C-alpha cells in the first residue's frame, strides 16, 4: 500500500491543480485493478456471510412464517428468562476470556522465548488438544473432576479432605472445561504477535536502565496488545456461543442463551423467536466490538507489533 500511496502523491505533485477534476487514467486503472482483485472475495463474503445474516434478520421479523411480518419474535424475547440467560452467558464468556488471557500470556511468552526443543514440544501438545473433539475433552473433564474422579480420589485418599469436592456439574465445572478448551485459541493468536516483537527494543530499554517490570509495562505489553485483543475477541465469541460444554459440565445449573435457542428451534419450532434471539446476540457482539474499537483501536489487530 505504501508504494501506491507514494506514487499517488507523486502524480498529484506533477499535475496542475485545475486539471484534477475527475479521476485520472492512472486512478481509474488502479481502482479497476482493486475492484477486480476484490470481486471474488467480496462475492464469497456476500454469499456466505451477508446473505445468511439478512435472511436471519428477515426471519426475525416473521419473514417466511405463515403469520407474515410482525415484531412478535422480539416481543417474545422480552421475557426476564432470556435476558437473565443472556446475562449469565455474557458473564461466562467474559470470565473465560479473562482467565484464558491470564493463563495464555505466560505460556505464549515461554513458547516464543524458550531456546530448547521443549518449545516445539509445547506447540505440538497444544495443537494435538485442538484436534481432539470438544465432546471427548468435555467427558474427560468429568472423569477427572467427578466425585470419584482423579482429583477427588487423590484428595480424599491422602486425607486432605473428608468429603469429595463439588468440582463438576456446577458453574465451576463449566469454567474449568471452557477455559481448557478455549485456551489454545488464545495461545495461537498471541504467539505471532509476540514473535514479531523485536528483542532489540527490550534489550535497549534494559540497557538504558529501565527495570524489568517497566520494560514489560511500557514496551512488551503494548507491543503484544494487538495479539491479546485479537485472542480475546476470538475466545469471547467462541465462549459466548459455546453449547455442549456448559450443557454437560453444568449439570443443568448453567443454562446458556444458546441452550434457549436450541429449545426455540427443536422444541418450540419457533424460528422467528430463534432468529430474533440470534439477532440480539449478534447486536450484542457487535456492540462489544465497537466498544473494543473505542478502547483499543480495532485496526491495531492487523498491526504487527514492533515494526
Amino acid at each position, binding site marked *: 500500500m505504501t508504494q501506491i500511496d507514494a506514487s499517488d502523491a507523486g502524480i498529484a505533485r506533477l499535475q496542475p491543480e485545475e486539471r484534477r477534476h475527475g479521476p485520472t487514467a492512472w486512478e481509474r486503472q488502479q481502482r479497476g485493478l482493486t475492484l477486480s482483485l476484490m470481486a471474488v472475495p467480496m462475492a464469497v463474503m456476500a454469499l456466505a456471510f451477508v446473505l445468511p445474516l439478512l435472511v436471519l434478520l428477515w426471519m426475525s421479523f416473521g419473514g417466511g412464517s405463515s403469520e407474515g411480518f410482525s415484531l412478535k419474535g422480539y416481543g417474545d424475547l422480552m*421475557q426476564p428468562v432470556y435476558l437473565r440467560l443472556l446475562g449469565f452467558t455474557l458473564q461466562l464468556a467474559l470470565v473465560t476470556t479473562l482467565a484464558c488471557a491470564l493463563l495464555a500470556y505466560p505460556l505464549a511468552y515461554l513458547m516464543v522465548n524458550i531456546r530448547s526443543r521443549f518449545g516445539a514440544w509445547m506447540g505440538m501438545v497444544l495443537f494435538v488438544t485442538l484436534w481432539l473433539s470438544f465432546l471427548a475433552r468435555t467427558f474427560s473433564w468429568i472423569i477427572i473432576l467427578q466425585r470419584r474422579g482423579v482429583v477427588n480420589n487423590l484428595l480424599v485418599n491422602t486425607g486432605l479432605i473428608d468429603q469429595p469436592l463439588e468440582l463438576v456439574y456446577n458453574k465451576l465445572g463449566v469454567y474449568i472445561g471452557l477455559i481448557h478448551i478455549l485456551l489454545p485459541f488464545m495461545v495461537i493468536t498471541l504467539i505471532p504477535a509476540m514473535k514479531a516483537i523485536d528483542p532489540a527494543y527490550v534489550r535497549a530499554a534494559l540497557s538504558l536502565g529501565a527495570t524489568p517490570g517497566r520494560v514489560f509495562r511500557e514496551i512488551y505489553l503494548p507491543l503484544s496488545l494487538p495479539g491479546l485483543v485479537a485472542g480475546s475477541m476470538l475466545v469471547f465469541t467462541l465462549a459466548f456461543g459455546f453449547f455442549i460444554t456448559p450443557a454437560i459440565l453444568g449439570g443443568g*445449573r448453567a443454562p446458556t442463551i444458546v441452550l434457549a435457542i436450541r429449545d426455540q428451534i*427443536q*422444541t418450540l*419450532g419457533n*424460528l422467528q423467536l430463534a432468529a430474533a434471539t440470534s439477532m440480539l446476540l449478534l447486536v450484542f457482539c457487535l456492540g462489544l466490538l465497537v466498544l473494543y474499537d473505542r478502547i483499543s483501536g480495532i485496526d491495531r489487530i492487523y498491526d504487527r507489533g514492533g515494526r
Partner: protein
Amino acid sequence: MTDFTTRRGFLGGTAATALALGAGLRPGLAQDYSALKGKGSLVVCTWGGHYSDEMQRIWFDPFSEVSGVDVSTTSLPDMAKLEVMEKVGNVEWDLVDTEGTQMQLAIEKGLLQPIDYDMVFSLVPKETIDPKVAKDYGIGSVAFSTVIAWNSDLFGAEGPQTWTEWADTERFKGRRALYAQPRPSFEIALMAAGVPPEEIYPIDIDAAFEALDALKPKIDLWVQKTSQWAVLMQNGEVDLMGSSLARTLEEKKRSGRIDFTFNESIVEQSYWTIPKGAPGGAEAQKLLAWMMQPEGMLAYASSLPFVVANTAIYGDIPADMQEQLPGFPANAARNLQIDEAWWAANTAEVQPRWLDWLSRA
C-alpha cells in the same frame, strides 16, 4: 445442530439377543410382496447411532432386497428444518421418525401427508397394530421409556417402587439425577407429589412447578443428554435416577450394579411420518407397511428396549426377555403414557418457564 443434542443419539450396543431371536424370523416366503415393488431410493430421517444402524439391519436392508428400493438414513428429525424444506420445495426426507410432540407440531403446520392404512393392513392384520399409535398422520415407530433406576450396591433389589418413594430422602439416601427437560420432569414431580398417574393430564402448570420446587433441592444434577447416563452410572456419581431404559438396561447387564422398575415408567411415543412434499412418498408408504410386520418388530424390540407398534409379538417370548421389554403387557400396564397433545399445546408456555426455573439457583 449435531446429533449430540438428542436424548438418543448414543444408544449403546447390545444386539446379541436380537440376533438369537431375529435369526428365525426372516420374512416368510409365503407372503406375497409384489405390491412392495418399486424403484428409486428413500431417505429415512431418524436419530443416528446404534439406534438407526439396527433399523437399517432389521428393516431397511431386507426391504431393499424385496422391493428394489434403496434406503439410506440421515439424522436428525427437526420440524423447523422440515418446515423450511417444505417452504422452499426441496424436501430431502421421505420418512421421518418424529417424536409425538414433533408430529403434533408438524400436523398444525400442515407438513405431513396421511398414512396409507390400506397398504399397511394389506400386509399385517389390523388387530395386531396398537390402535393408540395408529394416527392419521403417523404410525408408531418406537416409544422410549424413562424409568426409576437405582444403585443396587446401595439398595439391592429393593429400590424405590414409585416416584414418591424415589423422592423420599429419609428412606433412600443418595444422590439423584433427572433429565433437564420439562418432559418428563413435570410428570415425575407430580407423581412424586402424590398425584396418581391417571390424574396427571391435563397438567396444571402452576401445580407442576410447585411440585418441582419441592423436588429441586433433592436433585444433585440435571442430565442434558442420554449419553451422560452411562458415565454417571459407571462412576457412581448418582444413586437414584430417572433414566433412559436403554441406558439403564445396558448398564445393568454390563456391571450388575444398577437395577430398575417398570413401575410408573414414563413412555414417550414416536411416530413414522411422511412429509407432504416427500419425493419418495409412495415408496415410503410401502416401507411403513413392511416395518409393521411382527418379525422385524420383535427383532428390533429385542435389540433395543423400546415399545413397538405391533402388539402381537409378545405371545411367545422367553421369561428373561419379558423382563426387559417395556411393551410386554405386564410391564406396559404399569407405565404412564406422555400426552403428546397436551405437550404440543403447552410447550410454548412451559419451555421458557422451565428454563427460567432451572436457571434460578
